[in-house]
């Protein structure tokens, strides 16, 4: 199988799934409004998954994405309630994400405790701790900021640019920048090198600890941007949403061709993976199928995507 076809594999899967639901569910599924809705439904997970892809390609993992998003919505809402502008709130939410990433980074690289820890364990810890922190910030209650200003318009379909909501543009912008940086910056190539072979990268003088720290800041920073979208969608800070998003992000990356062993993965693939999961959710809803069917189908797709990729690799 040609490398091009291999890279297009996830996209073909997305198109096939889309056509299947289009046939079964008809116009209510294929309408422009529904298409835009699906893109909008992908915005939060997709934005976070872009960051997760960076982390996975660099050979790491982040299990605290959902908790970071929840924390971000709380921080943003608190800033708004304290009289901050919507821009202040958005920057604060992103900063909260980046700070979480920095914490992961210093723990994983051993900068903080002088012994490197596995990212799986560190982020498993933060998965609980950040969620707890989010709850603590609001005294176990959601934070209602009153007005969210222009933030409110991010996640409304029909209000936007070229027929797409602003939230979708945020996703596309973050994805575009992240893809460009992964492919064309020294930082990005060093991240790939570390995921591909950390020993080699170290040997060649790549500043491994610094690069990893940067990757986690960037990755969790994307979760912070996702938090801004989530805040906009909910119009409040809430410690409970985005449960399980960390796994959805990983699933999107893996469906899109990323290897959990590091070194492989693309932002475009991840977007396709995230969209594929939305299409299944949305399509099943349109067909009136129960929630459990969606969950089973999504699970099957994840396993099938990885199995197919292995088959392609063996042939290639």
């Amino acid at each position, binding site marked *: 199988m040609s490398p091009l076809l291999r890279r297009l594999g996830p996209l073909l899967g997305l198109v096939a799934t889309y056509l299947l639901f289009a046939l079964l569910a008809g116009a209510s599924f294929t309408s422009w409004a529904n298409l835009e809705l699906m893109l909008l439904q992908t915005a939060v997970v997709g934005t976070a998954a872009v960051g997760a892809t960076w982390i996975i390609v660099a050979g790491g993992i982040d299990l605290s994405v959902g908790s970071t998003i929840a924390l971000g919505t709380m921080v943003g809402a608190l800033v708004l309630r304290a009289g901050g502008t919507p821009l202040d709130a958005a920057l604060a939410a992103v900063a909260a994400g980046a700070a979480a990433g920095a914490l992961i980074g210093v723990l994983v690289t051993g900068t903080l405790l002088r012994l490197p820890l596995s990212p799986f364990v560190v982020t498993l810890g933060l998965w609980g701790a950040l969620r707890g922190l989010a709850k603590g910030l609001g005294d176990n209650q959601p934070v209602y900021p009153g007005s969210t200003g222009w933030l409110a318009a991010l996640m409304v379909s029909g209000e936007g640019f070229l027929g797409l909501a602003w939230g979708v543009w945020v996703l596309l912008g973050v994805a575009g920048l992240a893809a460009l940086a992964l492919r*064309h910056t020294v930082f990005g*190539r060093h991240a*790939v090198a570390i995921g591909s072979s950390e020993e080699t990268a170290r040997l060649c003088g790549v500043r491994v600890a610094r690069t990893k720290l940067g990757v986690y800041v960037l990755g969790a920073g994307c979760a912070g941007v996702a938090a801004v979208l989530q805040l906009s969608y909910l119009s409040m800070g809430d410690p409970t949403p985005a449960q399980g998003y960390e796994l959805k992000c990983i699933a999107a990356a893996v469906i899109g061709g990323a290897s959990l062993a590091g070194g492989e993965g693309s932002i475009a693939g991840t977007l396709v993976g995230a969209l594929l999961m939305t299409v299944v959710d949305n399509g099943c809803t349109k067909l009136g199928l129960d929630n459990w069917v969606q969950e089973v189908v999504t699970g099957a797709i994840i396993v099938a995507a990885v199995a197919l990729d292995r088959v392609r690799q063996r042939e290639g």
Partner: protein
Amino acid sequence: MSGSAPRLVARGLARRFGATRALDGVELELGPGELHALVGENGAGKSTLMNVLAGALAPDAGTMELDGAAYAPRSPLEARRRGLAMIHQELALAPHLSVAENVLLGCEPRRGPFVARAALAARARAALAEVGGELDPDRPAGTLAPADRQRVEIARALAQEARVLVLDEPTSSLGPADVAALHERLRALAARGTSIVYVSHALEEVFALCTRYTVLRDGRSVASGALDETDPDALVAAMVGRGVESLYPRGPAAPGEVVLRIEALAGTRLPRAATLELRRGKVLGLAGLVGAGRTELLRALFGLDVVRAGKLRIGALEGPRTPAERWRGGTGFLSEDRKGEGLMRARSLAENLLLPRLGRRGLVSPRALAARAQPWIDALRVRCTGPHQPVGALSGGNQQKVALARLLAAEVDVLLLDEPTRGVDVGARAELYAWIDELAHRRGRAVLLASSYLPELLGVCDRIAVMCRGELGPARPVAELSEHELARAMTGRRGA
């Protein structure tokens, strides 16, 4: 640089790890354009010395000078910047990055935060041209053959303007033609003034390539000088500190019944057709170029690769079987890929040694494991702190002893050995050869031995069969064979 002043000088280098003196007074002098052999047994301090030269370890005592200026690199990066680059034995490339990106990894030309793609491609191409051959700079490095990966590594050193190259066992994964090509390239580099430290266990190569030598033993430089004023025996004597009677002992052969028979065996891609018969009490060698299908044949026999066609019987078992069935049926396999699949580096000697049969009825007692492992550690003289030491902490030769001991402990009748002495020093190699001789010729085991190292095949085996492009030739007695003839058969040309 003037022609006479030395490029690199080390005086009185010392380094200890806990109670062990890894380096204990090492002197090294390397001239510009010199091809300098660094030899010594495993554990003699070669790795430590290389790490000190390359900036990965700081010495406890001693001084170094590079081109007349004090040289005390604090990191591999600093060493590279000063012009000393190391080419590692475990070839160090990032498999997912392109050849060009690997060549300039860590020193990419930039435009602001971006990689300057055009400059990167041009500089990589220039460096690749110096190492010869056509390498596609855009190809992922992971898809290259070992010899090409090594060229990428050397190109990397050249791109970073290295004046001293340190090569650690550079031919351990190369076939004869690639070895010749590498030597050609190193001579060309040396002729242009690059100094080369060549670390190798293959004394034939050392004598063929290098002009001067330094012998390390027990952390000291015990001999050095010009190679044309010494001979291999004297070098070996200096390395082991005593005379070696014979590297290849050979007991009287007493062939028994046929325990392994295959006919027209074929795998998915390799081998294409292999027919052979192996008796108890015999060592049968498999010669062939890298990629000829020797490893694939052994893997197929052991059940690690698919058997597509052909007949196969090992011991009492007809047809293809799983590795678990093979171990129970009295067949053991030693992998060429010690790091990747041969051993679990982080696990203990005892676990590695006894993995084919850890315990009875599903229970494993660490104490019982240690007790069962100890006799084998003693028998093979594995240098270690005890059965609980992680295997990754041992030297290459001692790791390989553990890998062989695994087959001994499982008391197998048929031993499938794939490159059993790769990266193993002369002393440990002599011990491994003695064991292979003991097993086959005195204890009546059957040994199938694949090796790229022809002197070893001729020294150890009773018969040798040559594999070429997946097809196995007839096995012939070693008395009828020469290195020259084998090399011709390996490249597919008919012997004279």
